[in-house]
């Protein structure tokens, strides 16, 4: 008998959310066969069976948040010697009579396939829902039409919140702590919030019973998974770090012209060249000149850690919330290399396939909210870093040059910094330097290593 406990899969994580249980009681498992999917601090990991045997008991349910060390399932290793311990390859229900090949019919019928009628499956496809993600409330756990609708509306709410959160936020880490911002027409009102709590369903997906207050609907969703992590992180960041934000504007005309010239070259490499790689380049040059911006404070020992490497976090909007993949050693990569890496990381982030390694160890974060809009913001620092830069939308504005009003491509940037460590003067000089490098990109190239 082996008890399989939630291991610490990431740096010092202490809990995880059970996304999916891939086995059932009575099922034979072999060592290293994936059995459970957990979502930890921003990564989802597949946990595999520690031993070969038969699953005796499953102690958790999909959707549970459990602490490291909690027993997830019990494997009877004694049963292993008996029968069916090997994960049998595809067994065909009496197949291909008179046929040469061994037929391959989708393996394992009931075990991993959720229960639903063909019509409900069809409906799920129409609604673009992966039926395996929906927990059924029907007899024996069958997924019903109603379950699909619940799942869809919960998903929609989630999506709306994320969009709004991103729109409000100037940085990956400064999202509102409360999960439900008033984004839906009939959303939360203070009085409604005080109504008696809505009973939560056991279902793993954010499924809450909507409650009516007159014709205003409130929905209560559990604050969990990534959203919960973000919220905890935010609170810590703003309570520990005294934030100051300074805003500046950049003239982008020369950079834009340069980018236009480089675009065809990028296309040859199948790259989409955005402004971001140029910003990263300017940023690392400035960081080298102002080491205090690429630092962190060790709160425990009261030490300042100056980092001589430049791992730049890029806030990325994903269906699961904002994630910050990290570009390592950004100072040693070319503009094109950066563009390629951004593309690759963004893709992985959207598919939820980033590894822990790819989202940790950043030294400075850039949040690019320009594509969505907004003039300025207070980005919240990605603790324990000491500063964060937000890029806002680029637009044509009237500006005065040599006593004359002219139209230029302008972009605002907001820099939040940790006032414990960084003085306002340093911060402004730092942004001035970035500004200088980007307004005349020739300088950028002159400084590049």
């Amino acid at each position, binding site marked *: 008998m082996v008890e399989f406990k939630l291991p610490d899969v990431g740096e010092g994580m202490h809990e995880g959310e059970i996304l999916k249980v891939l086995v059932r009681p009575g099922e034979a498992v072999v060592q290293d066969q994936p059995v459970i999917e957990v979502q930890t601090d921003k990564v989802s990991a597949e946990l595999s069976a520690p031993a070969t045997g038969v699953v005796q008991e499953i102690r958790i349910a999909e959707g549970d948040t459990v602490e490291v060390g909690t027993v997830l399932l019990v494997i009877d290793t004694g049963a292993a010697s008996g029968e069916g311990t090997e994960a049998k390859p595809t067994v065909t229900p009496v197949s291909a009579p008179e046929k040469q090949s061994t037929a391959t019919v989708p393996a394992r019928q009931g075990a991993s396939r959720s229960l639903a009628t063909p019509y409900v499956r069809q409906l799920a*496809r129409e609604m673009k829902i992966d039926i395996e993600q929906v927990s059924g409330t029907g007899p024996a756990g069958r997924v019903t039409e109603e379950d699909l609708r619940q799942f869809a509306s919960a998903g929609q709410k989630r999506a709306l919140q994320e969009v709004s959160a991103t729109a409000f936020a100037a940085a990956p880490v400064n999202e509102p702590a409360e999960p439900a911002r008033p984004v839906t027409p009939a959303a939360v009102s203070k009085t409604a919030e005080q109504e008696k709590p809505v009973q939560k369903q056991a279902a793993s997906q954010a499924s809450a019973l909507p409650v009516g207050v007159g014709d205003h609907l409130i929905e209560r969703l559990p604050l969990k998974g990534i959203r919960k992590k973000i919220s905890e992180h935010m609170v810590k960041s703003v309570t520990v770090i005294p934030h100051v934000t300074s805003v500046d504007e950049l003239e982008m005309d020369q950079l834009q012209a340069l980018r236009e010239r480089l675009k065809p070259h990028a296309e040859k490499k199948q790259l989409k060249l955005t402004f971001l790689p140029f910003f990263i380049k300017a940023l690392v040059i400035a960081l080298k000149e102002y080491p205090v911006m690429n630092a962190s404070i060790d709160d425990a020992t009261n030490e300042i850690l100056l980092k001589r490497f430049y791992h730049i976090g890029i806030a990325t909007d994903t269906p699961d919330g904002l994630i910050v993949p990290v570009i390592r050693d950004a100072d040693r990569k070319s503009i094109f290399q950066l563009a390629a890496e951004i593309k690759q990381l963004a893709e992985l982030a959207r598919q939820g396939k980033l590894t822990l390694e790819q989202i940790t160890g950043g030294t400075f974060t850039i949040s690019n909210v320009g594509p969505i809009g907004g003039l300025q913001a207070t980005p919240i620092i990605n603790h324990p870093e000491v500063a964060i830069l937000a890029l806002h939308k680029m637009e044509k504005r009237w500006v005065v040059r040599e006593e004359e009003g002219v139209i230029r491509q302008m972009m605002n940037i907001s820099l939040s910094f940790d006032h414990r460590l960084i003085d306002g003067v340093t911060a402004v000089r730092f942004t001035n330097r970035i500004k200088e490098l980007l307004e005349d990109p020739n300088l950028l190239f002159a400084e590049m290593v």
Partner: protein
Amino acid sequence: MVVGEIAIETDVVVIGGGPGGYAAAIRLGQLGQSVVLVEKEVLGGVCLNRGCIPSKALIHAAGEYHKLAGLGKLGIRLPDGSAAFHMPDWQAWKESVVAQLSQGVEQLCQANGVTVVKGSATFLSADRIGVETGGDFETYKFRQAIIATGSRPFAPKALAPDHERILDSTDLLNLQELPKSLAIIGGGYIGMELGMALAKLGTSVTVVEAAPGILPQTAPHLTQEVRKQAKKLGISVKTATKVEEISRSGDQVTLAVLSEPHGREELTVDKALVTIGRVPNTGDIGLGQAGVVIDEKGYIPVNAECRTNQPHIFAIGDVTPGPALAHRASKQGIVAAEVIAGLPSSVDSPYVPYVIFTDPPIAGVGLTPEEAKEQGYRVRTASFPYRANGKALVIDERDGFAEVVVEEDTHLLVGMHVVGADAPNLIGEGALALELAARVEDLALTIHPHPTLSEVWLEAAEAALGHAIHIVNKK
């Protein structure tokens, strides 16, 4: 290829007019796509012209003929005490059935705006096919394509049919005269179906099977009744026996067979039928030029949407890995058509029922008890015998049983199998029950009409719950 050829443009080309291809073409037509369906022989494919339909026509005739002998018991006397089977009349009748069906397919294609082209198609590139008809060569440019070229009998060189004395299943179904003696090489479902039919019509049949038992793909407890009946019909079954050599000797054929206990033996018969497998028709249709890959056995791997590695080219039916069954081909055809038309569709069910038209027939869906155990289920099985069913006795069909495989914890049905009269019709209920994720109680609580064979399901389900009415329940 003619230089400067002009390609005819179409949304979709479907290559092969079998149950996969024609179903796809008709569905595409319904969904408003322009479709060209290319068929080199006759619409309906193997299934309609030389497979399911002709073989079942023969099996039905043989069954009816065989029954005559037992009619005396029911009080029916034939005037002169005997009956005769006239093969040419049967051929004519079979042809009329096939013709009616294939005309039906033709009309349905027409009514749904499908352009049917007679000819042999080859891919020229990833968006063009060439079709050869007699001396003509026409090219078609397509946006999407469906490969449905089906399969053909497999025979190694040593067993190659000469189509005169050494036959494949197509030859056998086209015979104008019954052979006096027939050796069947391969005791799979086609061999056993045809062997039993011919035995009933008076042919002396020997089955040679290399595996330890006949119908090697089917669970032994389900094939037991067939083994018994084969014996009663006088079929000589040689299992664990290999055919070493086959040669013509005058107007007969001689088989040299080898087995453990008997060593080498010789067997001389009028005709031999080779049914040892089928191979996909993927070798000479220019798949390389279309960039479509095949596996080492020649099958085209596809995903649940029936897409090949080339996302705009689909493959369905016997050319894809999986059981070679007409209903699977049709399902895949419909899914491929719907995916092409942009509908969300998918072959996402593991429940492909199988039917074997032996005597008694066998049919099933889902897992057998052994398979369920292998896959880690804890299951309970229960069965109900035909001889305890009123209708079975009334129609003098007392051999067989229905079996349900039930998951112990949830009582969900994971498999249903039936051996006995009308099994192929009865399994429809099983397929529906499994698709609806029914529990064994659902089956037991459904009122089944009486007296019918379908009551065997009701009673098997009740037996699983420990309270069947018409048998003594196991404690």
